């Protein structure tokens, strides 16, 4: 029983460690623009993008290259996981305001 408990604790610790090890990058949407509009992330690493929509209007974070799409309600925040990716540039855009909301993830 004790052994099982110890094993569970070790597994939990590893899971927390793995979760904590995921780098987090913040992106803000303001006036239908991404800040920053260039996000630099390390190659072969999973990254957590925390996107805050400061506009009252909703926006959809979308990237064909990253295979990601997610709607973000106005005045709210969300999380999108990307990677591990190979080095290169991965454009993303706001589908609701694509003329202005443009950005890219640069993997180095």
């Amino acid at each position: 029983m004790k052994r099982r408990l110890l094993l569970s604790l070790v597994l939990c610790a590893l899971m927390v460690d793995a979760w904590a090890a995921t780098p987090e990058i913040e992106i803000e949407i303001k006036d239908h623009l991404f800040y920053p509009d260039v996000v630099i992330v390390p190659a072969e690493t999973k990254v957590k993008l925390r996107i805050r929509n400061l506009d009252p209007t909703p926006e959809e974070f979308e990237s064909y290259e990253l295979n990601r799409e997610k709607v973000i309600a106005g005045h709210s925040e969300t999380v999108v996981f990307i990677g591990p990716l190979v080095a290169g540039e991965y454009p993303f855009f706001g589908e609701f305001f694509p003329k202005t909301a443009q950005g890219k993830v640069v993997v180095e």
Partner: protein
Amino acid sequence: MLLNAVILILQETLEAAFLISVLAVVCFMQRMKFTWLLCGLLAGTLFASVYAINLQTVSEWFDYVGQEVVNASLQGAMAILMALFFAVLPRPQATLADAAAPSRIRKSSLAMWIAAAIVMLAITREGSEIFLYLGGLVQQEEHVQAVLMGGGLGFGIGLSIGFLLFYGLLGLPPLWSWRAAGCLLALFAGIMLSQAVMQLTQADWLPATQPIWDSSAWLSEHTVLGQLLYALLGFEATPSRWFVLAYLLGFAVVIAVIAWRRPLQVIGENQAGGPESCGPLLSRL
């Protein structure tokens, strides 16, 4: 803004219109009533508005990946229901007495309600995005006219393409109508399952893998053709291994169920279903 509204609403409408048209072809040829379509549309619209209103709360579930989990559940459920739909679809009647048999009527009714559930889930998924987009933008005075006009235009084009597909499929020889509709609905199941996998990968509930090919150099998702293929076939220029496997699995399972039930060939031979029999359609609505 006008053009963007047209494109955005058209994309969402197209995906739902393709599904409903093809499903309607199968039900039409099975001589089912169209009550299911109305029920699915109404319930879907209601759930879509509820989902759109509560999107922020849903998004915060499971440490901000609730939206992915809900979407993946909707898509997974649609794929499973599609297989069930073909599994319970009654075999064509050999005689008129068989057609009126209680078991056949029961099965037909069950298939009808499964079709309604599929439509409801599809409208919930696609409609919520439309509601959110329109709801958010009509509050901005400078955008109202362009968004409503563009949205109406996109919706109208999507709906027209849906009707074209419906009558186009019914215009084929009956056997081919069945084959095409069966294949398209099997593809739909594949698309739903692969999109569910993509959503769970985005939520970090499934491991991310490198794309197994990159076709963006000759056909990009940024092009009109790429977008159309995305809506019709779930095209991805850089799919992952899990995405392709889920796509093939969804497609293969539904095709296997259709082959197991074997309704296509027999119905194609025994029943009318060509354009000449489209007349009673309105009376069934």
